[in-house]
């Protein structure tokens, strides 16, 4: 057990969690059929707001992370009002442009420290470690204090993710979720049914931005350092891949996508130079052979049927 819980594995598990949260964020915007490529931009806003609040204003982490998410969400509403008049590829390009603009602004502002980025961000692990040691706890059976604090971070992230999954599942069965599904299926028909499409699209957009911002804040407090390069075009593509690989019909799809795509580079360490090539080829193959992603509603129904029959026999 102690071997399994080494720092390396724990760190990967932490990244899986953050990426899974990002997966939920793109799932939410996609659930109204909007392809937004701005999630990396929102993540960047969340991360920078949060880092500035904790490093420069000295706010506690548990306040700064939600504030970062709210900042991202607020910006998303401002740009969302006009942007959501656009559909399909226009929206994709406008949001991609938004991400680029955010990157350039971050690169030029003083408070974000330009290309150097912000370093010395207190990590969640050390914070928890300090709290633990203030209680006089430094050894836990066979585990070191560092292991325990990383483990606790993992638990916190797991709780956040579990809450998000629960939230999405509940959302799908609610009035809002049905409105989302109706807009995804056919926007004009949904509008004719009396659904306020602008409101619901904006809601999905802002929710996606909120979660992306929170993920950004979390990642800032996990990695000690953030820079403008962390949230560039490649990050957008990575987030998009979670949804494309896993499937965006169900919330579990992008999470599985994030899990696979975070673990894959670790397994294929030797091929790390070719990681992006593999990603690219993966995108093309997925689109050609399974555009709905690995997990779709049919897949779930199929397995449910199979397992259900199996248990009856």
């Amino acid at each position, binding site marked *: 057990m102690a071997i399994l819980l080494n720092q390396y594995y724990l760190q990967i598990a932490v990244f899986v969690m953050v990426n899974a949260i990002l997966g939920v964020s793109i799932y939410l915007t996609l659930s109204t059929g909007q*392809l937004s490529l701005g999630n990396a931009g929102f993540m960047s806003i969340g991360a920078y707001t949060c880092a500035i609040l904790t490093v420069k204003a000295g706010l506690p982490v548990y306040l700064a992370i939600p504030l970062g998410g709210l900042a991202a969400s607020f910006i998303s509403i401002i740009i969302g009002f006009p942007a959501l008049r656009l559909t399909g590829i226009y929206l994709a390009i406008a949001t991609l442009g938004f991400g680029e603009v955010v990157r350039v602004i971050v690169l030029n502002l003083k408070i974000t420290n330009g290309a150097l980025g912000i370093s010395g961000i207190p990590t969640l692990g050390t914070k928890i470690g300090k709290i633990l040691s203030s209680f006089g706890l430094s050894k836990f059976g066979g585990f070191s204090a560092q292991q325990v604090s990383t483990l606790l971070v993992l638990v916190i992230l797991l709780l956040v993710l579990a809450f998000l999954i629960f939230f999405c599942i509940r959302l799908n069965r609610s009035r809002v979720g049905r409105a989302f599904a109706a807009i995804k299926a056919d926007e004009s028909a949904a509008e004719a049914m009396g659904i306020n499409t602008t409101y619901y699209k904006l809601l999905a957009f802002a929710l996606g931005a909120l979660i992306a911002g929170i993920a950004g804040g979390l990642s800032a407090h996990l990695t000690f350092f953030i820079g403008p390069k962390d949230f560039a*075009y490649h990050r957008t593509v990575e987030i998009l891949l979670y949804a*494309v690989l896993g499937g965006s019909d169900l919330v579990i799809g992008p999470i599985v996508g994030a899990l696979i795509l975070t673990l894959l580079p670790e397994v294929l360490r030797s091929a790390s130079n*070719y990681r992006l*090539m593999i990603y*690219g080829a993966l995108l*093309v193959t997925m*689109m050609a*052979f399974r555009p709905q992603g690995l997990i779709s509603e049919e897949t779930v129904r199929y397995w449910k049927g199979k397992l259900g029959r199996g248990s009856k026999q």
Partner: protein
Amino acid sequence: MFWQQLVNGLTLGSTYSLVALGYTLIMGVLNIINMAHGEIFMIGAFVGLYLVTYLKVNIFVAMAGAMLASALLGCLMEMLALRPLRRRAVSHLAPLISTIGVSIFLESLALNLFGPQSQAFPTELAAVQFELGPIRITLVQIIILGISFGLMFILRFWLAKTRVGKAIRTTAENIETANLLGINTNRIIFLTVALASGLGGVAGVLVGLSFNAVEPTMGLSMGLKGLAVLILGGMGNITGAMLGGLILGIAEVFTVAYGASSYRDAVAFGMIILILFIRPQGLFGKRQGGRF
């Protein structure tokens, strides 16, 4: 100062126009945005660079070589990444995502093949300068302006007058009808993708010459600019792409010249965000249909 900046802006803008034309042609005929166009442009630049460096060919031969190589690459992309999607009805976002895949594949391929460092053309063209009144213009700028405007006029004429050009326009108008009229639309699509990519390749060599730097990441920034021009000029509008490129080039050069130089890369996207909100069909676009 003003006239000098205008010439610089026109030179930069004409390369943007060439890149945007590639987007526009594919947008017009296939109704998709080819996100890999920037990377095809970058590969074109590398092919030109290696032709000049290792085979010691003339710069114009290198441009032809780059054009050929990127046209072939474009055809390969059409066969592997786009054609399979056309065979069955998929979401209109599928080709977009598929070409994003091609783009990161090509960028990473170039990174592995050519290395991350920026490489320069071993020519002395940039040193040759002419004085025209208040303006100083380099030979490189003259080549860029000549080649890109020449190509644009040839393309314009070719699309308007020749048989194949008319077939391309018909296919852009309506692919089913074009099919019924006896046009081999698959061949036309192939031709359009090859043409668009070829233009991208030439633009790659021109941009490599003007900045005297060729690197794997140049495709992404140029691709995003081309995309901005596509929106600025109106989707699938050839004139729009040409003029939009020039406008963007001039706007960028003036932003740099009069102050905010570090915001240069934000100009393009600031402009398209503005355009999308005020006039979503683009500066020269019509509200519906009627491409080219």
